């Protein structure tokens, strides 16, 4: 049977070869120059360019229309509004340029498709035109740079508020631990040599400030309306703390402490009532029920956003934004750090 297949395949190859030979012979005998573009080729491809433009622009508009409600909901942090407004302004500009410049390209590609009876115009350069399209982008970019840097400086500024909440996010393969400084409002110093089962984030047990530090896993809470100063550490490799709903991100680098601050302005409960969020969650739950999975509710998330190994895709922690009262009540219930002192 196999032999028959092989035989059939070989015969097919021979037949195809003969067919191509006939084609090549007739091509060479007639002396056609098949590679040469004809007027009808040019017309066809010119039209295809224009058609492509409509398909492309239509595809873009369709995506904006169908996907936009799935994008991140409104910012849950104060500075996020700055980012979102700047982002929207940039999108307007960028989309405009996208349409206009691609539009010119495809329009010209169609309009000036070649014909035998025409000759191109000998145009070498035009200083005026070139000045215009150097200066106009330069001015537009100046605005982008100025606003970008203005907001960047505001977001990265230290010491916005006198008494911020301090939280440390500690990353390791493949989970997160949040640490609160406790009653003394000061973090104890860390020492990676002391890491063991009872001291998973590597605190220096000799530092008395550690004694009241609070360590939590799986989820951590933050109060609405208070500034949170995060410091980030990593036990092993580079991770990145990404909190997309808060428009916040910072790498966690071993051997180094990095930081980021933001003020949450929307509690988890409030965000669950947001129309945009409800629409998405309903859609997600519909999909999940079809797969026989439990329904979920909206939650803020901390994700790892720097490739960190096999379970990188699953390195997450839930964030809950509470009212200050609920936050304090939650914090009171958490255990403080109790290491087994080393000798």
């Amino acid at each position, binding site marked *: 049977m196999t032999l028959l297949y092989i035989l059939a395949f070989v015969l097919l190859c021979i037949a195809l070869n003969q067919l191509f030979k006939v084609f090549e012979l007739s091509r060479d005998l007639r002396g056609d120059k098949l590679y040469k*573009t004809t007027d009808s080729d040019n017309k066809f491809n010119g039209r295809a360019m224009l058609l492509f433009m409509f398909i492309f622009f239509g595809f873009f508009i369709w995506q904006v229309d169908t996907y936009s409600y799935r994008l991140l909901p409104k910012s849950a942090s104060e500075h996020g509004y700055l980012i979102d407004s700047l982002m929207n302004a940039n999108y307007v500009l960028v989309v405009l340029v996208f349409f206009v410049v691609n539009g010119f390209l495809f329009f010209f590609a169609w309009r*000036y498709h*070649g014909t035998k009876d025409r000759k191109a*115009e000998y145009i070498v350069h035009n200083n005026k035109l070139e000045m215009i399209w150097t200066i106009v982008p330069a001015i537009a970019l100046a605005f982008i740079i100025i606003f970008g840097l203005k907001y960047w400086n505001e977001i990265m500024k230290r010491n916005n508020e006198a008494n911020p909440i301090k939280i440390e996010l500690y990353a390791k393969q493949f989970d997160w631990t949040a640490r609160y400084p406790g009653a003394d409002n000061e973090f104890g110093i860390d020492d990676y040599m002391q890491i063991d089962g009872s001291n998973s984030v590597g605190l220096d047990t000799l530092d008395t400030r550690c004694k009241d530090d609070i360590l939590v896993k799986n989820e951590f809470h933050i109060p609405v309306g208070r500034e949170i100063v995060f410091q980030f550490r990593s036990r092993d490799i580079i991770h990145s703390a*990404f909190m997309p709903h808060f428009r916040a991100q910072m790498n966690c680098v071993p051997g180094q402490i990095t930081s980021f601050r933001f003020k949450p302005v929307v509690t988890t409960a409030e965000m669950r009532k947001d129309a945009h969020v409800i629409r998405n969650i309903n859609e997600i739950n519909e999909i999940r029920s079809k797969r026989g999975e439990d329904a979920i509710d909206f939650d803020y998330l901390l994700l790892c956003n720097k490739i960190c190994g096999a379970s990188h895709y699953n390195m997450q922690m839930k964030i809950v934004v509470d009212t200050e009262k609920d936050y304090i009540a939650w914090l009171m219930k958490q255990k403080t750090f109790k290491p087994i002192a080393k000798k």
Partner: protein
Amino acid sequence: MEHNTHAGVIEGHNLHDHAHAHDHGDHHETFVSKYVFSMDHKVISRQFLITAVVMAVIAMVMSIIFRLQLAWPGEKFAFIEALMGRKWGADGILNPNAYLALVTIHGTIMVFFVLTGGLSGTFSNLLIPYQIGARDMASGFLNMLSYWFFFISSTIMLSSLFIEDGPASAGWTIYPPLSALPEAIPGSKLGMTLWLISMSLFVVSSLLGSLNYIVTIINLRTKGMTMTRLPLTIWAFLVTAILGVLSFPVLFSAVLLLIFDRSMGTSFYLSDIYIGGKPLEQVGGSPILFEHLFWFLGHPEVYIVILPALGITSEIIATNSRKPIFGYRAMIGSMIAIGFLSFIVWGHHMFMTGMNPFLGSVFVFTTLLIAIPSAVKAFNYITTLWKGNIQYTPAMLFSIGLVSSFITGGVTGIILADSTLDITIHDTYFVVAHFHIVMGLSAIFGMFAGVYHWFPKMFLRMMNKKLGYLHFWTTFLGAYGVFFPMHFLGMSGVPRRYYTNSNFPLFDNLLDINQFVTMCAIFAAFAQVIFLINFFYSMFRGEKANQNPWKSNTLEWTNPVAHIHGNWPGALPEVHRWPYDYSKPGHAEDFVPQTVALALDEHDGGEH
């Protein structure tokens, strides 16, 4: 062999009367010296091209495998087990480490082996001697070494796919400590060692090639070929080679320090690490140092990838619009500006690393400046089409495709370059969309354009036009279908390099976007089969080429349709004008080759 080594020597004794010395049979070349260890730039160019095609096919198949995982996580695909083996694809499901390995090697192959080695290697080698009117490269021997280092480097990279713990899997940027610690990920065992060795050899190849390109362009231009009469392809290759020479050694230093950290206990990049159940001794290093070193190469690298493609496009758009390239000097100026700026923008990859925010501000400024020369280039291409008489060869289609993807991917760069906006989209699919469109698509379109256009110079035959059209339109549609929707994934907060997004219920309703992307990717991959058939069929059985099939002005079309040792049978051609006299008034034909002398009242370079 004695003619083979030094183009300068050939030129010296052979300008006029020794033409016959270049006919076949005069010197005894064996198969090995002619096709394997050849020092002829035309052969080396083809060697680079074929190697790059093989590497590109491998990297593309990898992308299809991991795209299947992203679209249908947990679905069983029998062929995945067949291809990847039981360890990496048990029951037809890709395992997470294998996923990361594929992503890493896909990126590495595409960026370095296809778009750097393949693109520059093929077209710099083919076109530099041809278009400047030289017998060969300045050093044929170094040129040969450049290819064989590239070949060994490719082989080592591919061999790492077959070892027990799998190839490097820390992402193509191989940030330590992930890449430094074998405990962190299996790919950082032998796989990473092979990656580092392979890349070191790649740097050698790149340097040998680039130095040769620079020297050849500066020293071996034929009579009359001034710098401002060079085709823009050559300018692009020159700037690219300079970028390569200045930046690849820095990659090498980064790699070397990583090798030390991995095997000699140094701590350049390591500090305060507890892994595999024990603390490491290394203290005081910083992974941020690696990021600085890596991106000091990494950013110029994206221009090393894109500039040759832009050069190729400039030439093809002018030829097929039957019009001079608009703003020749502005094009050169923008290339030099882009090249210069590319060295002072690397920090925009590092806004979120904890680098000082003030330093971030500086990089925002320099990065956004690059938009200006880039915009000038895009506008100049479009204006070249304006009032042209466009001949739609497959090469022309791909060139226009390049301009479109350069615009579409370029504008999202404005968003990513803004540190404020980068906070939310850094390392998300928005970035993946951006660089695949602006760098991946543009460069590969440029490469396709170059292959279709210069196929007659490489293989003395023509590629099939109709298949070329089909290839372009299916690729163009498929490619935008793959990468455009990724912007929306990124804006929804989906991080890169996730094995599956379904571990976050929050991303469940984005799965249909991923499925659409994967289907487009499969469609686009099949489109490449059309190209491969056309390419290999035409190589042996295509229509025979004539001397100047595209009615082009540049020097490579003035020599006969044959691979002559020394390129021109008689004296080297003499150049009298710039290469863009298309449709010049006062001439009967719509092109005037560079070898045609200026008339008495005629000005050169479009001067009136």
